[in-house]
């Protein structure tokens, strides 16, 4: 399914949700928002995971300087220019203001303030020590209480537990998708669709897996395998096409829209240890060590994770794996760490391409050239 059809179908889906009386809560795409809590409160969590273009970025300049993350700019642009294919954004009832990065705070605040969408706050600590985990729980309690006020009744532990299990199972299926040997663009389409629709999409995922198992989708043997890390490739973004046109194939999405999301699985032991449901969400936050929000050990974990994947891959497949660090221009987290990540991985013999870009059409040629040069080097 192409991106336009996806958005069109999703628009209808969301309208149906709305007709069922379900409220829509939107937020920037980050990996620490407790969508299970939103789901348990019978809200629909709408992750803004849409790539931008020149028009969307330009439209944000009434609110923010151009030296703001291109994704953040585009999110404002979506609300400001209201493109037809994003008409479903009119259905948003609440917006979560969170602090994955400071641009997340600014953009969410602007969307809430200037486009009259009531805000819900959910702030995430930067470290992962004992106090931070307790603070995370405070934020969960605070959000839970706000959702209960809106809903007019409590969120029962059973309801929350059920939602946690639902999302947990959904992520397990997504992990299976991750393992499939299919073209990266196809894999990403499925991941996009799944993460947009949420667990409602699970039957389609299972069907897709079944179909691939029965009728594998062959990949060109000439293509060079790529692990993509850094910033996500969002819906409506041509990055994956550029990589494939250059002869590459993304086999692992080590990003928000990808492994950061579906690797956050709570194990059965934790479910059985009679923890409060909110504690399970705290545990999930604690285990999300590959997310770029956290300090001070993000870099070490990230290097270890990529190295581990790389070594396993080369051992099993007997061929090189390329690593592209995708940097959306002016992204605080990924950009600041990019030179350190590259240096550390290259010290371990892993060649990395730091690929920085915004969403303007003009840089497409330059990006293609850089990708092709990198893939050429992998021969």
């Amino acid at each position: 399914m192409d991106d336009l059809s996806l958005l069109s179908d999703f628009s209808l889906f969301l309208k149906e949700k709305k007709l069922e009386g379900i409220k829509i809560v939107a937020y920037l795409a980050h990996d620490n928002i407790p969508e299970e809590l939103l789901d348990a409160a019978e809200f629909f969590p709408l992750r803004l995971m849409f790539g931008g273009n020149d028009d969307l970025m330009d439209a944000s300049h009434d609110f923010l300087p151009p030296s703001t993350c291109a994704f953040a700019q585009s999110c404002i642009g979506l609300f400001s220019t209201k493109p037809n294919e994003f008409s479903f954004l009119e259905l948003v009832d609440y917006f979560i203001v969170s602090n994955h990065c400071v641009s997340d705070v600014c953009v969410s605040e602007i969307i809430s303030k200037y486009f009259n969408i009531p805000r819900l706050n959910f702030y995430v600590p930067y470290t992962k020590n004992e106090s931070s985990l307790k603070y995370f729980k405070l934020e969960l309690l605070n959000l839970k209480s706000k959702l209960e006020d809106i809903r007019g009744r409590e969120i029962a532990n059973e309801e929350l537990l059920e939602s946690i299990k639902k999302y947990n199972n959904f992520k397990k299926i997504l992990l299976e998708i991750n393992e499939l040997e299919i073209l990266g663009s196809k894999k990403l389409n499925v991941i996009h669709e799944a993460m947009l629709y949420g667990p409602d999409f699970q039957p389609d995922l299972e069907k897709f897996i079944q179909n691939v198992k029965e009728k594998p989708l062959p990949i060109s043997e000439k293509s060079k395998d790529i692990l993509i890390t850094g910033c996500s490739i969002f819906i409506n973004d041509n990055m994956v096409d550029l990589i494939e046109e250059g002869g590459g194939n993304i086999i692992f999405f080590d990003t928000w829209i990808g492994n950061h999301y579906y690797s956050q699985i709570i194990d059965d032991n934790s479910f059985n240890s009679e923890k409060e449901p909110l504690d399970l969400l705290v545990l999930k936050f604690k285990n999300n060590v590959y997310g770029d929000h956290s300090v001070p050990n993000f870099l070490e974990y990230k290097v270890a994770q990529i190295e581990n994947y790389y070594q396993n891959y080369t051992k099993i497949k007997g061929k090189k794996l390329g690593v592209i660090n995708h940097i959306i221009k002016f992204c605080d987290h990924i950009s600041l760490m990019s030179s350190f990540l590259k240096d550390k991985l290259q010290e371990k013999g892993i060649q990395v391409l730091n690929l920085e870009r915004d969403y303007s059409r003009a840089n497409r040629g330059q990006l293609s050239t850089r990708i092709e040069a990198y893939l050429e080097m992998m021969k």
Partner: protein
Amino acid sequence: MSLIADEIIQFSSVLRIAYNLLTGRNYLKRKKFREKEKLVAVTLPFSDLAFAAGTIPVFPIRMHQFEINKYLTYLGSASSIFGWDTVSNFLGFVRNLGIEDVSKLVDGIIEDVIDVINKKYNEMYDIGIENGISSDFCYGLKSLVGMHVSKGSNVDACLNVTIRCSAYNKYLESLKAINQGPKQIWIDIPPRNIGNAIELLTDNITNAIKDFENLTGNTITDNQIREHFKIGNQVKRSYKNIIYDISASDFYPCNPATFSEIMALLSITYQDYNSNATRYRDNIVSLEKEMRERIRKGIGMDVSNMPRIFVTPMFGGWEPKSHEIIYELGGRALYADWELLQLLEEIPTSPNSNPAENYARFLMNATETGIGCDNDKLTESYLRMARDLNADGMIFFQLFGCHSISNCYSMLREKIRRELEIPTTAITFNKIGESIDQMKTRIGAFMEMFN
């Protein structure tokens, strides 16, 4: 610059603060190698725990060798024999006699202090970029990376306090990649004061104190912490008095450009108190006294007809020529970043209270009501400050690459127009000295509004 220099020699405390800033390297070398003290890198005014622990906090740029005007070196040497007051009085006396050569020397000293600091900042900026930080980040971060790349290996630890700026927090994380040696001591400030967040922050501070104990091998008592807070409170009191009683008043103890220069110097040095809290306290208390004394004697300048232009933010990088330009155009530039961010609030020191908890409350207050966890709160801080200073206008330095503070400008402009009804303008800033002509034009157009 001669008028500025002429004024500054009247303030021996300013010479002392400038001298201590520029001669930090020798002082720090002595502390580290001869006295075996531990050096701790700090950024922003978060040096309290390092002082309380008996370590030497240092804003890393001060580990560099500065090209100090040789006469300031002579003054420094003379002051160690005769005392700073005597030296300053002598300079004033010579100046009044009209001995031109000596006057030129003094002019040169003061001009050099400001220029040398700015040149060093720009040098750090270049080193930062050469060592891999993207040029897309703000001036402050690029310079900080440069400082750590060039001198960070000399410190024993880095005190890392998280704030709302995600780039800053990631920069803090990158410090251990830049230099593996120094111990990293973290204080994570919860983003909001909800539930028992103060208690959690107190725990984080207590853990940081333990890290300091491990670093020094000494136990840190509550009394030690309180004693430092007392010194810090005296610094803050004088700093606040200078901001509110003097900079917002209609009679200045010197011309407004000199005054701004002094405020800029305070803003830079407040981050680490020039590595010696008691000495800094004495200097700033003496500065306030000197200023009041001059005002009492009617020495200085009536500035009642000069519009008060609140220039902010400056702590992450700003164009130091701006206050001269404003002065030449008939205005006066007011700087008060640390007060705006609530980092000049005093910390209670009563014997029965828990100093770690008091410090937690201080940090949380700065986070909640100063820096703010969102732009709505941050813009309220700007409004409050402009109101308290009775500002006639505001110039906002919009740092290229700053995603935290600069991003609030559109919201701030709207609020200022609605609630304060004073003119405001934004000036884009990337690097010191880079676009002075453009800035002159902007400030010129802005100052036209007051004619």
